[in-house]
């Protein structure tokens, strides 16, 4: 038999002979003994010395064993202090009273040493079991607190990253559980330097911290590349490659990425494994599904990853609605899914676009009986560009090493034009010149227009008048993609020249292409305010820069930017 650790045992017994006998037996079994000759003494001894176990006579003067047992149990709290009643009581009623008072067992007189030892041992086992249960409960509680605290810290760090974006822009409405991060849901939004808006709704596989782990690098890539002026394709390729590299095989991220262009009135979409999003036309009431055409991020190798996007026209008031699978996969009591059809019924019944979120939530509650916390939804509407104010970029360098007298020329040829967007590099180079930073938005917009004119209308020979209506719009981007794939020859040249002028300076940008050119005179005759879908963005360029001019039958564009002395 396994030797027991000695216990401290309180013996409460009014009969001196019985007390002496019992004390001796218990002591000989290796335990420490405390004695009391009535209930009140027993409670006091328990209070001051906290014995492990109590042997309690039922009938005692001053305070009987029943009352003493109740008080001791109350003092012991959660700790199990077994009480064995010493009794020659035989009536079941009296025995029941012992149990009601908190007694755990009985020992009949005359005492039997073997039975007493066995009972003490059994009660000690019970006592230890209870102590272990309490210990483990506390341990679990501590672990739980620890986990929650970790999540709080992770969330705080993540919120710093996630909220560096523009989710609070007036054209964005979203619904997300505060701990959506730990459901693997991710919602990001940021302005590009030209004032377009990138929005990402992502859903990592899994739950808890593992699901949240990938969110940080994804957000960093999203914000970093958006801020530098990269388009969706480059950003997607980078996000995919990064997640593929760092995530384990069974982890990936379903995502829809949007680029809303307020100036061009369009939305570019890439959906990898997310439920259908919807583009809602405010005028016609028509809904276009934005269906997943790709595998999630982090699945394919960089070589096989498909970054092709779709572009749809969007007018002021049109909305894009994205949602996580928590909406569609909500189950009712019978394991029935909420499903796309029910969602579409909610859309169809919607009369007030602003109430759509509440209506979906209500439908989910009605369906399930309670709200789930892994439901993420976002709605982005197209506003007039003037209603949005993208934040000014922040630069961290001091400006002491600013270059002021230089020129550089690039020639980007077919193989490069297919897959490389040179604008972020060119812009980063130009923003070494502090005087240009104040007009970064205009500079971005003008360079982006010049480059896309040279590429799309020049090198690819696309007809801008196609973009006049919605179907032509889609055709335009299909042709763009097809012609870019087939491109063999052609170039876009960019010449940048920075010259000091007094305390300030001047930037001259020339962009040339290998295309057929255009009728400069006819295009220049159009009114300057025409910045709609078609028109080569010429008006925009003329509004935002100085001395915009075209030569060589439109194949060469030239603009200037000036700046004054720095404050």
């Amino acid at each position, binding site marked *: 038999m396994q030797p027991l650790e000695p216990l401290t045992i309180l013996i409460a017994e*009014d*009969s*001196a*002979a*019985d007390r*002496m*006998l019992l004390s*001796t*037996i218990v002591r*000989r079994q290796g335990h420490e003994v405390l004695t009391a000759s009535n209930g009140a003494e027993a409670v006091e001894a328990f209070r001051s010395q906290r014995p492990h176990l109590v042997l309690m*006579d039922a*009938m005692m003067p001053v305070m009987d064993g029943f009352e003493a047992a109740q008080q001791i149990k109350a003092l012991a709290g959660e700790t199990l202090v077994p009480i064995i009643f*010493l*009794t*020659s*009581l035989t009536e079941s009623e009296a025995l029941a009273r012992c149990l009601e008072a908190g007694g755990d067992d009985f020992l009949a*007189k*005359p*005492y039997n*040493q073997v039975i007493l030892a066995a009972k003490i041992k059994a009660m000690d086992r019970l006592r230890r079991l209870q102590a272990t249960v309490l210990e483990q409960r506390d341990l679990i509680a501590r672990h739980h607190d620890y986990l929650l605290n970790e999540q709080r810290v992770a969330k705080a760090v993540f919120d710093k990253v996630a909220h560096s974006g523009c989710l609070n822009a007036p054209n964005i409405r979203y619904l997300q559980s505060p701990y959506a991060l730990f459901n693997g849901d991710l919602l990001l939004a940021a302005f590009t330097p030209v004032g377009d808006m990138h929005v990402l709704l992502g859903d990592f596989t899994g739950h808890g911290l593992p699901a949240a782990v990938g969110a940080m690098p994804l957000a960093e890539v999203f914000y970093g590349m958006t801020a530098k002026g990269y388009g969706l394709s480059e950003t997607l390729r980078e996000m995919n490659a990064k997640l593929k590299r760092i995530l384990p095989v069974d982890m990936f991220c379903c995502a829809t990425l949007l680029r809303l262009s307020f100036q061009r009135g369009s939305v570019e979409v890439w959906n990898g494994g997310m439920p259908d999003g919807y583009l809602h036309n405010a005028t016609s009431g028509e809904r276009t599904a934005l269906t997943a055409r790709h595998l999630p991020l982090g699945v394919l190798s960089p070589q096989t990853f498909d970054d092709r996007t779709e572009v749809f026209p969007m007018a002021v008031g049109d909305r894009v609605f994205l949602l996580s699978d928590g909406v569609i996969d909500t189950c009712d009591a019978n394991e029935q899914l909420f499903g796309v059809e029910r969602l579409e019924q909610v859309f169809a019944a919607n009369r007030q676009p602003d109430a759509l979120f509440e209506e979906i939530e209500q439908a989910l509650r009605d369906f399930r009986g309670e709200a789930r916390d892994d439901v993420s939804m976002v709605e982005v509407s197209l506003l007039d560009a003037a209603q949005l104010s993208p934040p000014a970029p922040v630069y961290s360098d001091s400006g002491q090493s600013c270059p002021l007298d230089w020129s550089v020329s690039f020639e980007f040829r077919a193989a490069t034009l297919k897959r490389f967007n040179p604008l972020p590099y060119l812009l980063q180079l130009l923003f070494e010149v502090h005087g240009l930073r104040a007009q970064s938005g205009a500079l971005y917009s003008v360079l982006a227009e010049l480059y896309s004119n040279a590429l799309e209308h020049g090198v690819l020979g696309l007809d801008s008048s196609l973009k006049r209506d919605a179907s032509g719009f889609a055709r335009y981007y299909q042709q763009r993609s097809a012609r870019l794939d087939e491109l063999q020859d052609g170039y876009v040249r960019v010449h940048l020249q920075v010259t000091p002028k007094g305390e300030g300076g001047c930037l001259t940008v020339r962009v040339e292409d290998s295309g057929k050119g255009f009728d400069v005179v006819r295009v220049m005759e159009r009114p300057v305010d025409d910045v709609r879908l078609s028109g080569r963005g010429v008006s925009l360029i003329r509004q935002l820069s100085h001395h915009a001019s075209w030569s060589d039958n439109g194949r060469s564009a030239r603009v200037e930017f000036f700046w004054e002395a720095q404050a």
Partner: protein
Amino acid sequence: MDNTHLDRDVLSALQEVMEDGYPELLDTFLSDSEERLSLLRKADDADRLGATAHSFKGSSSNMGATRLAELCHELEQRAKEKKLEGIEALVGEIDGEFAIVRPLFEAERQRSLAE
């Protein structure tokens, strides 16, 4: 020896457990019992009578005073059922039984001290 009044097996077990404390245990029992007997004689209500008889029964049984324990049990039952008629006779019997076992315990004490 006759075990009607005193169970010799119980006594030898007690001696084994108590070792040097055995004579003191016997002393304690005897003085304890004197006290309980006087309480029994003075008791004027059934509850007190029952409670004292109950305790006396317990320690008598522990000490191997078989007959004394039986008589205390009977008294306890009668007190509980409130059958107090002729109860003095029963208390008297208990008195008598104690008068028998007392010298037996004292002899036992002497015997153990002499060992």
